[in-house]
């Protein structure tokens, strides 16, 4: 109604408009999970880093172990809440396959981690495990499951970066058991959290470049 009377756009103006709207659409529809991965990088680096520094094997632990445990729990709850918010925000107003896939993927995390906790707690109780073995059980299995979820995400969204990240976290799961306690916390913090940080930065750089290749095809 109104814009048909506007000045006609030049080809350059038109391409510029396409690039700007495309960038906005991608950002709002969650094509780049840089911020989400950044939140998880912070959670893992700081949370598990503190647990490592609080371990009794150190000459002077940074803080009592239970304090570090509470900090980890709070950070994880906050990160989970943020992830749920992020997921609901990007899928708002979208109907169809991608919303369904996103919801199924989100629930997969919840369901499989609930089952993992149940299994680990049962094993802990039945096996009368010592604290070291318990620590390795949790770090190994949770890294494995996290990695597998990213492998699945990589397959679902045909995202090689996400798949590669999944492979890295799965490898970290194996490594965390091999290095023992408290090295497993260092693996969680630096290798796991560091992995999240690298993935976040790669998505951030991609977002900045705005993938001009897509337009020229």
């Amino acid at each position, binding site marked *: 109604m109104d814009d048909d009377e506007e000045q006609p756009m030049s080809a*350059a103006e*038109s391409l510029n408009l396409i690039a700007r709207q495309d960038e906005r659409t*991608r950002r709002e529809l969650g094509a780049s999970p840089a911020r989400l991965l950044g939140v998880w990088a912070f959670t893992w680096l700081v949370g598990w880093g503190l647990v490592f520094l609080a371990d009794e094997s150190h000459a002077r632990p940074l803080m009592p172990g239970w304090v570090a445990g509470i900090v980890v729990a709070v950070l994880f709850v906050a990160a989970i809440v943020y992830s749920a918010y992020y997921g609901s925000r990007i899928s708002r107003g979208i109907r169809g396959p991608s919303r369904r896939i996103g919801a199924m993927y989100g629930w997969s995390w919840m369901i499989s981690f609930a089952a993992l906790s149940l299994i680990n707690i049962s094993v802990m109780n039945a096996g009368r495990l010592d604290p070291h073995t318990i620590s390795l059980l949790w770090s190994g299995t949770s890294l494995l499951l996290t990695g597998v979820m990213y492998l699945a995400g990589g397959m679902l969204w045909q995202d090689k970066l996400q798949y590669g990240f999944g492979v890295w976290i799965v490898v970290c799961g194996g490594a965390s058991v091999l290095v023992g306690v408290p090295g497993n916390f260092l693996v969680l913090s630096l290798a796991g959290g560091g992995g999240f940080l690298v993935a976040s930065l790669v998505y951030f750089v991609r977002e900045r470049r705005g993938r001009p290749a897509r337009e020229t095809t």
Partner: protein
Amino acid sequence: MTEASLPELDPVIHAQARLRVTVALAGLHHGDQITFPRLQQLLDMTAGNLSTHLRKLEDAEYVEITKAYEHRTPVTLVKLTAKGRAAFESYTTALHRLLDATGGS
């Protein structure tokens, strides 16, 4: 300017508002639809303005508009048709050819 030898730009798409609507819809995954309010938010357009442009895109069969009910609430769902996607692709190709022909100015 040698206008005659240059490719014609699709007049349905070559208007600021409709171009932005097309770009936003092309950003959806295949098979996905978007609700009218979310599309409006992605574009910062008034409802009336967006409706007008959607109607023109619908008349050209570039856009498919579906009215549905969710929990007894009516929702308007919008998606780009295959024809619309193809039109957008040839539009961007034409833009690049124009830009090459005019030496990037």
